[in-house]
């Protein structure tokens, strides 16, 4: 407990030192807020150019996209992963196809997403979905196939079989792996969101950053970058806390 306090105190000192150094370098050495705005200049620029309402819209639109794509990926990835891991015949058909698609970088789907779904929301959901889907699927599948046979045999001797064996014994045993997949998928979803918003969007945090640069408001752009970082950290730790409650133990990292 004391070490936790000490370490977060030290972390705060580290952050404060960095911010101070940035402020000093930007104001006294570089002296050009169009190239290197200081932290206080970023905040001031954001205050001047952004209303609270606009900010709330950008954040909520981005979060909506992440949750939409990630939610679809979680449902599809977990369902397919569990099915492919439990019914080996199904797995033998599904896995080769998915393994073939998996190495393609998620962002490389953006052009096809635009061709298939147009420039609106569905194409962004699709790209975010793809980014989050593969780690979720793979981890769920691996969790299902790595269940020690002894556990399943023990359940069978107690006459647990069929759907009950799957839902009450196998899936709970695979939960930690599923939780890991969800966290990996979630952090990928955030990285992809920004790229999807840079290419074609009229709202959202990624759009805010891109637009601010085009308007020459670099301070707002830097503010936007930091905002994306903070929002993704907060969302990630919320997910981690939720998963800890469901899965019993949180995945490391």
């Amino acid at each position: 407990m004391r070490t936790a306090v000490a370490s977060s105190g030290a972390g705060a000192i580290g952050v404060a030192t960095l911010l101070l150094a940035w402020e000093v370098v930007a104001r006294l050495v570089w002296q050009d807020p169009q190239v290197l705005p200081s932290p206080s200049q970023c905040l001031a620029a954001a205050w001047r150019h952004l209303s609270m309402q606009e900010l709330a819209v950008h954040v909520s639109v981005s979060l909506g996209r992440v949750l939409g794509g990630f939610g679809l990926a979680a449902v599809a990835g977990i369902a397919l992963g569990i099915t492919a891991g439990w019914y080996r015949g199904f797995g033998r058909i599904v896995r080769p196809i998915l393994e073939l698609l998996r190495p393609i970088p998620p962002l490389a789907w953006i052009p096809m997403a635009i061709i298939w779904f147009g420039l609106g929301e569905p194409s962004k959901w699709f790209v975010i979905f793809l980014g989050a889907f593969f780690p979720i699927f793979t981890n769920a599948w691996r969790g299902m196939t790595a269940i020690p046979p002894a556990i399943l045999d023990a359940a069978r001797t107690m006459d647990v079989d069929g759907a009950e064996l799957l839902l009450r014994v196998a899936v709970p045993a695979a939960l930690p792996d599923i939780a890991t997949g969800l966290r990996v998928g979630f952090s990928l979803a955030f990285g992809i969101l920004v790229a999807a918003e840079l290419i074609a969007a009229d709202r959202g945090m990624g759009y805010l950053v891109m637009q601010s640069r085009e308007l020459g408001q670099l301070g707002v752009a830097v503010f936007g970058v930091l905002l994306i970082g903070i929002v993704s950290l907060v969302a990630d730790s919320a997910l981690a806390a939720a998963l800890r409650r469901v899965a019993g133990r949180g995945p490391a990292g």
Partner: protein
Amino acid sequence: MRPSGHDVKGTVTSGGDGRRRSRRDWLDPLLVVLALLLLWELASALGWLRPVRFPAPSRLASSLWELTVSGYPTGVTLDTHFAITMQRILGGFLAAVALAVPLGLLIGWFPLLDRLTGTIVAFCRSVATLSLLPIALVWFGTGEASKMFLIGYGCFWVMLSNVIAAVKQVDPVLVRAARTMDAASFDLFLSVVIPSALPRILSGARIALGVGFMVIVGAEMIGTIIGLGALIMEARTFYRSDITLVGMIVLGALGFVFTTGLERLEARLLPWRVRQGGGPS
């Protein structure tokens, strides 16, 4: 379809059909993929799939040929796109590794330094790399430097946090044992800490390279027409979705070759290595 439990028992009891099983391991996936391609080709031939949305596999093959021989945009052949993309990825990746390894060893070794920088590293790592693209454009222009910066940024923080974690998880008993044998601290570092941190550092490098592959596509989407990421965006603009798909396949193959190559290398160099997750970015 049988539940897996029976299958698992089957492999344990019937040792004799191990050879048949291993042939099945590559034959089954191959058949599945071939069947899928056949279906796809058939559906296109029957006019069920619109060629712009889902170009047929045979079309993709001829596009690959076109891209290799005459290039797209005309004159820029696949090997040029490939070489430029590789150059950007490796440039950014190697710069990131060169910076992150010494810095990570330092931070991981001194607990105070680790506590001071912990929050900063965690935050910078969670900043979405591509959100820096507009800022990179201001700092470095639309040329090569901004792409290398983005790839370097993405790789650097993943690499750094893995190197730090690698040093921190070195068994303290080993370190104390070396101290009792009068190892001087620099010797200790070279002969005890680095070797036992190496597996995690290598898997960090593999993960960082994966991040590089992800970032490059986004970085190439703006301000260039050469490179695999630029190729697929450019082809879409002119409704050449066949070229886009070929580019995606090449990108996927490249990523696959690199990650499995590094995995093999790891296994060869460090046969004693225990499997450890390095975490995503």
